[in-house]
């Protein structure tokens, strides 16, 4: 391998890879995300609860431990990249970016309003901390391949992480990207599948079967690990074990998750809460239920 530039000088405010986060803290942070999602959707009047809840622990592990970032310098050339293929879960991302000071917390008040900088889907042109716009399922792993190849061409060692939905894997373009990832030996590329078993219309494999998923990724030349996406220890261990960006095989983490995880109401009726709006009473009950286990 040729030598790569790496960010060896850590500036104040930089979030390093592998910063301290205990199992309990990760678990807590996942629930913190869920409460913030409920609050955001309350002000917007509509939102994607269930699919934001299923990736809460994954987001917590990425943003509070695994990704190398400089919130004060969102365009830092050596930052790790994060792409949200399942763009409709951006609601779970906004509270994190505000908490890490990518933008003022006051922006959250505008969520969902016309011409707001933060919305149901992420827009890279207006929201600091967003590495690529999304919404169109199936595009972002391809974009991630481009970023990973761009890193290699310029000899930078940043990592590119793409979170996709499992329904999203029905899109053919994703498999073009998966082919390209192994063809170009992109050890600096990680795909995390938030495999909550559902798409908007129903159970994923009832609509169009995507299993056996691990075998499919393996056959396409990727390293695969399968975890419980809500197990904080498994999330920490897996994210800590991402291969060196200079290595030659891309990684897929199949995170088996529960759509609507973390709230009885949404776990029992994940599809009803795919897109909706809680009443004030439902919201109060939901927050109480989540807070009860956060103590």
């Amino acid at each position, binding site marked *: 391998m040729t030598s790569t530039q790496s960010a060896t000088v850590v500036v104040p405010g930089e979030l390093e890879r592998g910063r301290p986060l205990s199992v309990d803290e990760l678990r807590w942070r996942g629930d913190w995300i869920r409460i913030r999602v409920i609050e955001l959707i309350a002000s917007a009047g509509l939102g994607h609860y269930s699919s934001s809840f299923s990736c809460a622990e994954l987001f917590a592990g990425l943003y509070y431990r695994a990704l190398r970032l400089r919130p004060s310098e969102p365009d830092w050339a050596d930052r790790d990249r994060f792409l949200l293929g399942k763009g409709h879960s951006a609601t779970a991302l906004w509270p994190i970016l505000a908490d890490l000071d990518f933008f003022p917390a006051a922006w959250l008040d505008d969520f969902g309003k016309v011409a707001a900088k933060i919305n149901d889907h992420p827009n890279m042109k207006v929201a600091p901390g967003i590495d690529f*716009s999304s919404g169109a399922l199936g595009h972002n792993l391809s*974009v991630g391949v*481009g970023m990973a190849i761009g890193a290699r061409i310029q000899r930078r060692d940043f990592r590119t992480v793409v979170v996709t939905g499992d329904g999203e894997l029905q899109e053919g373009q994703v498999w*073009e990207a998966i082919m390209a990832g192994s063809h*170009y030996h992109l050890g600096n590329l990680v795909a995390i599948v938030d495999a909550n078993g559902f798409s908007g219309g129903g159970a994923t494999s009832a609509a169009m079967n995507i299993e056996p998923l691990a075998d499919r990724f393996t056959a396409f030349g990727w390293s695969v690990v399968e975890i419980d996406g809500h197990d904080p220890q498994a999330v920490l261990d897996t994210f800590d074990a991402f291969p060196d960006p200079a290595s030659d095989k891309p990684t897929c983490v199949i995170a088996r998750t529960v759509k609507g995880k973390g709230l009885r109401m949404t776990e029992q009726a994940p599809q009803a809460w795919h897109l909706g709006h809680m009443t004030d009473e439902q919201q109060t009950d939901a927050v109480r239920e989540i807070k009860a286990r956060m103590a």
Partner: protein
Amino acid sequence: MTETQSPPDEKMVDVFSDQQPPVDAARNPIGWELARLADTDPRIVALSADLSSGLQLLRERHPQRYVELGIAETNAVSVAAGLATTGLLPYIMSMGPFGAIKCAEQLRTDVGYTGLPVRFMGRLSGLAMGFFGPSHQAIEDIAIARAIADLTVVSAADSAATLGLMRSTFDLPGPVFFRVTEHAGKVYDAPQQFEFGKWVRVRDGADLTIIATGAAVGVSVSAAELLAEAGIQAAVLDAVYLKPVDEEAVVDAATAGPVLTVEEHMPIGGVGSIVAEILGGRGIVTRLGRVAISDEAIEAGVPEELLEYYGLTPAAVARRARDLL
């Protein structure tokens, strides 16, 4: 390397020839220019969706800056967008309809809406691949490309114009879509600077104006020559920029007399539509004729025969021009 002036009837490289395409500016403008740019600009990257023809000089000199993505065009467009976010300047090679038509969504959502500086080289457009049949003919691409917000759309009349447009648009901060028709005959003697959003008057004439784009420009110039023999003076405008368009050039032409548009494109959404939109918007009334491929299932045939079939020859265009007067 020095550029060579193209001989009178030299066409661009036959991308399917068994012979190694020559690497000179005249017959291989894209490959030549990309290699030249890459020598001094570390941002240049060429992506190929199984269309690496003519890129051998770049591949030899800068192998790392050539990315082959195989017959996976939608992936290629989104990969280009990702590359652009890292500070690189990607040029995507794609063929005919497997560009703007197949990848319209990726072009719109990942490149247009994000404003990234991706350069999309729509090669073998129009009827260039006529022999392969309708599946390989890009004749709806202007309609699609110009509907995408913030996308600059340019159309090269010949080889020299291809080179000129690559240079003229090089510094644009946003995305650029190039419509290249390799079977075009010569129009320009040498690459020139094409002012942003401005059309080029390649021939003067007071009786009517022919507005054409791409390969149809050369055909229109030849038609104007035939008309001159009959005592009719036709001006010819090269609609180089299809987005943004040169509104004033349309207004001037229509104010002066009848207008005939000529394009290797379906009748909907191309140059004819551009002119009609402007005239309608400005309330200008003039006789407007539009020469285009007919709005029906298209035939297969070598370009020369198809052009004859669809009335896109100098003689047929001259006849349509006379009908307007």
